[in-house]
């Protein structure tokens, strides 16, 4: 909302020397957020009113003229101009060098300089209204029309800001910061708040009184939706421009002047915040009735939209049908028309939620509806009426009130609230005297009676439509008037019953830190929605996946049941810059099943779990290395992050995985995840170019954190242990798992074996086809003595012999 400070000053006497920065600051701290304080005149710096003395043709251009312009101080300047309405003696707006304009009202602002136009020196420019931001205040009727200021009786050389009454301060207020304060939606409301903050007198708007007698009446058939309707029937009006001062203020507040009749209604709304409307009285048949619309009833609005109404809409009607959509917009047929001579002025109050429903239903949010939907108090109609009648009489001295009706269904009383002063002090954390509290509230229009510990408060009507209803609201009023910044911070006390121990939270953090810090992986975040391309490539099935009603893009409708599609997308994105990287993400996944809620039996939420997923991508490592890297990360995770160990099995191939390179992850006989190489077909569909990609995904919610660390201490070996490497040829399909089992299984190959570990495997040159060479490191030692080399050799031989027998292995000869 934009406010003019000079307009606010109509209602409250802000001292001339007031610090406006402080005013904006104080309003921001206590009431509403002032987003900007603009010195309006700055827009018109270096702009003057000039008088065209003489117009001469341009020697080099048919469409340009060279004007001799009097810019005051006895200076006549040549200005080249292409305006089509130039006349000698015309007052025009001259932008002198240094002024900032927009060419033809479009594009970036440009600083005017002395320049030559087609060979003729020009001192600045003669402006069209939209070039100096006044297109709405002085709309041009045709292209290339110069702003004609002849109606402003000022001498040449007058500053444009002075001539056009632009020496004003505009306050821009964040609408969001006052959705709860219907009383502030107008200059008078802000003036009232300023008066309260600075203890300044507020000007009262004297009520309108009339003794007119006639059979003019208004009927309210929907008292639930219309709390008050004042109709004033008047003759002796006409459609003409409103006075410049009114137009100027309407423009400053961000609206467009139209004609005097419409301008009065808008002006009053901007002043006191209560929308008003004027109907052409000659088009209203019989009298006005406020009622619910009938289902299917039609109404053509002022903006030429024809609506088919429903019963929840409220309409203003005459005996022929609807003439306006109440509180939202007037009808095209019966509003102000060029020939209007008699009007019916509507000053009314409508129920907020209903107006809002209607405005949303037809996507017709207007200045009026946005005010009504905040819940305006019906008492404000009196101010709106008084101000309207003041201006009607001022603009139309011949005006006659021929009918008047104030149909006030239910008078609004101020909210009554009892507040315990002990409670108040406790909540404020500060002692304020009764007088201080009373004083602060009374300035805001509250009536206050203090009786012992009880304070009885009557809120002003303009705060009683929902804004102030409980004692906490009263507390807020006291606190904000005192100034939140003036309260000291107070420490909170607590009793500790024990250390906070949240195993599940710690586990997730341990895992993330393990992956990032120990495994060198980068954590990424992706959106919960998945791209269809990756859903189709990776998941290959959309059963049980939830969708958004209005997704960010048509192909981003599915929300994730797995982290893998988005991780694959991240891999593809990063392939441009990296050829060897690993990433992971921990996030929530969603399933269209098992609807339930532990919080409310009527609520049913879909199954939601947390997963951790990872991708290892490389075009420089072979598959074997990449696989072992990924598997290693998984294998060591339980140990390092303090959770129960899981195991690998090969039971069910993930749809996205290569036919050979994959594993399932099991905990307590339950599958909790997969890992594997992304199948070539899948990675091609994803758009991966050269990378091999290994993925894993685990259900984090199923992981079991250990209660405490479970490392076990083993005594250090008393006698030396020896590492002894053997390389043997195995059948190509021999599994390490079985080799290990043959060596270290139930019947150890030698009593002296402490351990056996995998070193590497090799296929290729020098290895017969159908075979592979595996290098195994044996750890050999005794608890009783230092072994001789013969004893070590013999233990190793036992292993080789056993592998030969059980695994068909033979010693490598080359």
């Amino acid at each position, binding site marked *: 909302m934009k406010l003019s400070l000079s307009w606010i000053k109509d209602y409250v006497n802000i001292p001339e020397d007031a610090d406006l920065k402080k005013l904006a600051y104080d309003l*921001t701290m206590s009431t*509403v*957020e002032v987003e900007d304080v603009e010195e309006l005149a700055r827009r018109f710096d270096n702009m003057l009113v000039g008088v065209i003395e003489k117009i001469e043709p341009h020697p080099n251009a048919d469409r340009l003229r060279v004007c001799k312009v009097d810019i005051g101080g006895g200076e006549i300047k040549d200005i080249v101009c292409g305006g089509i309405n130039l006349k000698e003696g015309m007052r025009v707006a001259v932008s002198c060098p240094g002024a900032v304009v927009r060419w033809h009202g479009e594009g970036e602002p440009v600083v005017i300089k002395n320049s030559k136009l087609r060979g003729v020196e020009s001192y600045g420019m003669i402006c069209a209204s939209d070039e100096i931001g006044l297109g709405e205040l002085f709309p041009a009727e045709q292209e290339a029309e110069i702003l004609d200021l002849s109606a402003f009786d000022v001498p040449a050389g007058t500053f444009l800001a002075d001539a056009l009454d632009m020496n004003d301060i505009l306050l821009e207020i964040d609408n969001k*910061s*006052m*959705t709860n*304060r219907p009383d502030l939606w107008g200059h008078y409301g802000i003036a009232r708040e300023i008066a309260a903050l600075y203890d300044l007198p507020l000007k009262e708007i004297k009520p309108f009184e009339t003794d007119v007698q006639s059979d003019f009446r208004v009927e309210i058939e929907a008292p639930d939706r219309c709390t008050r309707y004042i109709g004033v029937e008047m003759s002796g009006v006409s459609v003409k421009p409103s006075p410049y001062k009114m137009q100027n203020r309407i423009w400053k507040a961000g609206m467009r002047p139209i004609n005097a009749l419409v301008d009065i209604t808008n002006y009053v709304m901007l002043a006191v915040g209560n929308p008003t409307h004027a109907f052409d009285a000659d088009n209203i048949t019989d009298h006005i009735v406020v009622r619910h619309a009938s289902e299917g009833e039609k109404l053509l609005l002022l903006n030429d939209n024809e609506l088919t109404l429903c019963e929840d809409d409220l309409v203003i009607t005459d005996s022929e049908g609807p003439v306006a959509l109440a509180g939202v917009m007037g009808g095209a047929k019966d509003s102000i028309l060029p020939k209007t001579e008699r009007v019916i002025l509507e000053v009314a109050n409508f129920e907020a939620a209903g107006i*809002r*429903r209607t405005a*949303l239903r037809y996507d017709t949010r207007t200045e009026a509806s946005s005010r009504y939907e905040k819940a305006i108090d019906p008492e404000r109609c009196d101010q709106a009426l008084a101000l309207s009648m003041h201006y009607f009489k001022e603009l139309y001295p011949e005006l006659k009130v021929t009918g008047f009706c104030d149909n006030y269904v239910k008078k609004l009383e101020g909210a009554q609230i009892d507040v315990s002063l002990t409670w108040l002090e*406790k909540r*404020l*954390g*500060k002692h304020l005297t009764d007088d201080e509290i009373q004083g602060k509230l009374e300035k805001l229009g509250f009536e206050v009676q203090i009786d012992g510990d009880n304070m009885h408060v009557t809120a002003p009507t303009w705060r009683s439509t929902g804004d102030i209803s*409980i004692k*906490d609201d009263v*507390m*807020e009023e006291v606190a*904000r008037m005192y100034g*939140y*910044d003036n309260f000291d*911070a*107070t420490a*909170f006390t*607590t009793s*500790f019953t024990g250390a*906070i121990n949240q195993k599940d939270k710690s586990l997730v953090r341990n895992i*993330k*830190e393990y*992956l*990032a*810090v*120990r*495994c060198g*992986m*980068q*954590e*990424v*975040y*992706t*959106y*919960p929605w998945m791209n269809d391309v990756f859903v189709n490539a990776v998941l290959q099935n959309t059963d049980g996946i*939830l*969708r958004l*009603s*209005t997704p960010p893009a048509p192909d981003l*409708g599915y*929300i994730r049941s797995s982290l893998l599609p988005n991780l694959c997308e991240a891999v593809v*994105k990063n392939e441009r810059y*990296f050829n060897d*990287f690993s*990433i992971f993400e921990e*996030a929530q996944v*969603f399933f269209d099943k098992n609807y339930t*809620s532990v*919080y409310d039996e*009527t609520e*049913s*939420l879909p199954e*939601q779990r947390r997963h951790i997923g990872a991708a290892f991508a490389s075009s420089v490592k072979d598959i074997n290395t990449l696989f072992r890297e990924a598997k290693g990360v998984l294998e060591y995770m339980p140990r390092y992050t303090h959770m129960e160990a899981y195991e690998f099995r090969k039971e069910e191939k993930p749809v996205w995985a290569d036919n050979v390179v994959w594993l399932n992850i099991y905990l307590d006989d339950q599958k909790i995840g997969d890992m594997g190489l992304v199948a070539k077909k899948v990675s091609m569909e994803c758009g991966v170019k050269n990378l091999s990609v290994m993925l894993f995904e685990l259900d984090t919610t199923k992981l079991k954190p250990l209660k405490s660390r479970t490392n076990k201490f083993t005594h250090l070996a008393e006698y030396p242990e020896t590492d002894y490497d053997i390389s043997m040829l195995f059948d190509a399909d021999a599994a390490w798992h079985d080799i290990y089992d043959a060596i270290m299984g139930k019947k150890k190959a030698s009593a002296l074996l402490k351990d056996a570990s995998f070193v590497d495997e090799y296929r290729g040159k020098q290895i017969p086809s159908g075979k592979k060479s595996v290098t195994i490191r044996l750890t050999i030692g005794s608890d009783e003595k230092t072994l001789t080399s013969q004893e070590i050799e013999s233990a190793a031989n036992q292993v080789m012999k056993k592998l030969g027998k059980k695994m068909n292995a033979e010693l490598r000869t080359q």
Partner: protein
Amino acid sequence: MKDKINGILSEAKNKISEAASEGELQNVKSAYIGKQGALSLLMKEIPTLDVSLRPEMGKLLNQAKNEVKDLIDEKRVELKLKASEVSPDFDCSVPGIMPSGGGLHPITQMCYDLNDAFRSMGFEIFEEDEITSEMYAFDKLNFPPNHPARESMDTYWLEGHDSGSTNEKLCLRPHLTGGSVRYMQTHKPPYRFVYPGRVYRNETTDAHHERAFFQYEALIVDKDITFTSGKVMINSILSKVFGRDVPVRMRSGFFPFVEPGFEIDMQCQVCGGKGCSVCKHVGWIEVMPGGSPHPNVLRAAGLDPDEYTGFYVNIGLDRLVMMRYGVDDVRLFHSADLRFLKQFR
């Protein structure tokens, strides 16, 4: 002979002290006490001497040999201490090998920093599911039906669950506060918890607006809390994030679920409060809303608002991280772009 010995000895001493490397020293050693060394050769002359002189000369020679040997050993140690195993042109300015290339997302880092701070003050960490019902997104938070504030948070509704009563309508949570009500419903007061999480708004995105972003909610509910206690929470958060005390101001603000409600601004850390383009020339930046939970919210959680009150803040983590590092586009956080993420380690 005595003179000869002394001559050789002093010559050897000079050579030893001049030796600049172990190699040279080795040469000195063989030249004087090696098999063909000067002193060894003299030893062979002893039998040719007069018998009466032999013991004395033998003794002298042996002393000289030992002296040379000791000096050489001494010198060898000295040279070892001075020398290097590599050539002197070894380049120590080559960069080291990075220990591990990974890292946590900058928002995770910020979140963990804050968790640590709050845990040290006895706060629990809470998490909730991201899909919620309209009932918990709005009703329980004192948003009346049809209230404009419902619309200010444009919500992602789920297909097939986007109509009906508010317990049937499901959405991606537009804020965390509904989850806090769930916490209060299932725990006994007093409460002291933080609640980090991602929230969603159906918005057009640009450098400052995202559809998915992170909030960090901190809530304390007890019998004797005043809103001024909240200032302690706010100061803790900001000093943790920025590593120093940051001036803050609390001003009047409206959110349906708090009463009273605040907007909490911090001094712009780019210009130090003088006013710059980042803070739109006001010197302050809005960082979080806060306030005391509205009595209706406490009631929705099953608490008696006459008995309990509290303080709540809700921090936009994205904005805080952007301030801390000078990130100028909020969309980078969900880009999964390693060129961006690798900067935060």
